């Protein structure tokens, strides 16, 4: 059941706290970066009038849960926050390269392996 109620957007620190307690994630550093990305993304969408999707707390929770499963925030982001934000192919690419990749990048995996 998804209930919707208007509340003020909490500060990033509070968002991290809440997201962690809801999802059970433990990596605070990673979650705080995710929060940062989600906030940037919401801002980017607003500024560029990408309005056919949504970015917010709920996408963040989905993303965190997915990352807990896959272990790869980048890959999870593609199927959660990015795809939920817009359906336009070019807009997605823009979000990925302007907002997501500077923080979470697929290359880090390559380097590690």
């Amino acid at each position, binding site marked *: 059941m998804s209930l919707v109620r208007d509340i003020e957007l909490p500060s990033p620190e509070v968002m991290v706290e809440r997201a962690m307690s809801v999802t059970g994630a433990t990596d605070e550093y990673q979650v705080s*970066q995710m929060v*940062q990305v989600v*906030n*940037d993304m919401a*801002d*980017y969408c607003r*500024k*560029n*009038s990408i*309005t056919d999707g949504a970015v917010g707390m709920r996408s963040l929770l989905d993303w965190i849960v997915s990352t807990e499963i896959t272990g790869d925030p980048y890959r999870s982001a593609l199927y959660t926050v990015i795809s939920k934000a817009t359906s336009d*192919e*070019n*807009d997605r*690419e*823009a979000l*990925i*390269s*302007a*907002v*997501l*990749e*500077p*923080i*979470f*990048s697929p*290359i*880090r995996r390559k*380097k590690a392996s």
Partner: protein
Amino acid sequence: MARVNHKRVKQLLNEKRSKITDRQFFTSRILAGHFEDMAVAQTRRYHYNRRVRVNIIWNPKYGQVAGTDNQYICINAGHKIVTSVRGRENRYWTVTGLFAHELGHVLYTDFLAAQTYANNLDRYRWYPAAPILKTVKDRANEAALWDYAKASQDNLLMLQIIAHHILNVLEDGYIENRILNNFPGTLGYALETLRASQMKQMPTVTELIEMEETENQPIFYSILQLMLSYAKYGVIMYGDEPKTDERVQVVFSLIPDIDRALLTHDARERFDVANVILVRCWEYIQPYLEEMKEQQKAAAAAGSSADISEMLKGALSKIAGATGIGEGSSTPVSDAGGEEVSATATARKQTQEDAKESSAEAAGVGDAESSPETEAPKPEEKNREGGESDGAGAEGGSVSGNISSDGESGERRGASETEEGRIPLQHTDHVSAPEGGTTERNDDYAPAPYEGAAADIDRLLDKMAERAACEQLENERLQELNEAAQNISYGDIHSGVSIVVNRMASVDESYIEQYKRIAPTLLTISRQLQRSLVRQLQDSRRGGKQTGLLFGRRLDSHALHRNDGKVFYKNALPREVPQLAVALLLDESGSMYSCDRCTYARASAIILYDFCQSLNIPVMVYGHSTEGASVALYSYAEFDSIDNDDRYRMMDISARDSNRDGAALRFVAEQLCKRNEDVKLLILVSDGQPADTGYYGTAAEEDLRGIRKEYQRKGILFVAAAIGDDKPSIERIYGDSFLDITDLAQLPSKLTAVVKRHIHI
């Protein structure tokens, strides 16, 4: 705000045999836009509201790699640092690394405070405070420094440059550190790659000493280089030199201060450290400055006009891995203060250990202070051997990268592109005939390795592909870049333009007369177009039963007697036609006067206006041109007309001055946006490209495309009617909403037809 097509960037990046060259790729607007977009997305969270501009140039001869003045980032993609890397993708990473570095400056460097620092130095004052002097020697140094600075204006100038450079070294280390911590993704990765390649080029202490001897390089130089090496990477490349070398020792003694500078968020602390370094190293700096003076005098005698400050700057720029920061006038982003964690902590720790060790050693030997006072560098023979191997490449610390395989390895020759060493045709009488030759088989053939084999073929393939594409290149590039850059974001670049909206308060009698004279013929066209429509509109509003249909779902029992099969009927529910609002924007630039363009434009405005009025469609008619530096808009008809004289106002439509389409388009679109009709149609009649001072060419086209896209998102339908010679350019700008009017006489009817098409019934 429209955006960059990031997908296109990636496509271009990954094309194996690309149609455009690297140079074209890196200097294209789309890549710059790609970085700008990234900068915007990543800086906004710091509430950094200035827009960062990125410019990428390609100038192999220009010494500087990248620079920024806090608003404008300039990257030289033609620099050897970039071109020595093979492959477009790797080069892209290098450029991104440079970008990340400069973005770091934009975000974290306090340019304003740096100015204050310079101003204070100008008045022979320390900023923020005088350095803490611990030893007698430091005190003496400080006094000597000020004496020297006060001696002449040139001295002060040089001192400032040195201070600026030391600051730059500290700042570089600090910002790279923060970027690595805060942007672990692509930016961090790219910076990491760049740093790795720069680190390889860092000369070791041994090489530095060698350079001091062979090129008469001052010792201060080496110290600066080592400091940079430590600030950036946390390591010092000792080479073959023992850790007791005086240069290393000087840097060791400064390590706690440098660390303090690297980790604090407060720029003033960095200034403080720069001051300390100035004082502590004064005994090295002074001879260096004196020598620079000598050199300048010699150069001046030889006829060179170079200023001493220019010379010094030139000399300092040779330090490897240093990038210049320009002058800027803004403060860094505010951030929660506190200490930063070093990204190169482990390497740093190692060096610190080394420092402790060596100072302990030094203490054991009896050399109380680690700062060296003896002037003679002892190990001289040793340098030679150590530096021989690769020291030659790193002259002055500048980047040395050979891409072409011109070095001959073993007996093989590297293939080269140009013709060389061919024997010209000669007349010969006989050929040699040696005797007693045998045939042997050598199974142990071990070829001398030639790495260039694959690369040569690669080059060949590249060339073939390039040639094949060469014919289309010019055309395609224009098109490609235009298409690709379609979404380059401009924001509201017109916000600074003053817009004047002109509207006749009352209509002149003569206009009314003229209108009445020509109106009947024009209005018949409008009426014809209305006729069919009015009927349909009424039907659809009223609903009702339509009988006598050839096919349908319901049988009309009253019509069954008919033999022609028209026996079906349909029940149409009454429904409201979606509401429509129309805005017409006419180009009134000077070129409209030829070929009766503005006359046709006037006629179409009149017809369209009448058409819409009779169907109760709200309509707005505007013309645009310029008046001096401001954009002039001419309002002919508004949505809510007070008097009913708008139709006469339209007689005033004529050709005027230049046109700054973007501002006018934005204005009208904004007006239209406020309407609450379902369908908003913006019709644009224009004969060509935007043309105003400082507003023309591809950039202006990009702006128009951006505006179009932006307002399309807000639900405005664009129709651009092209009536002049510049149809292709209008089509390029407005894409699918382009309406080709080849025959001017058709303009009025075609335009009205467009409106009609949008009244979906």
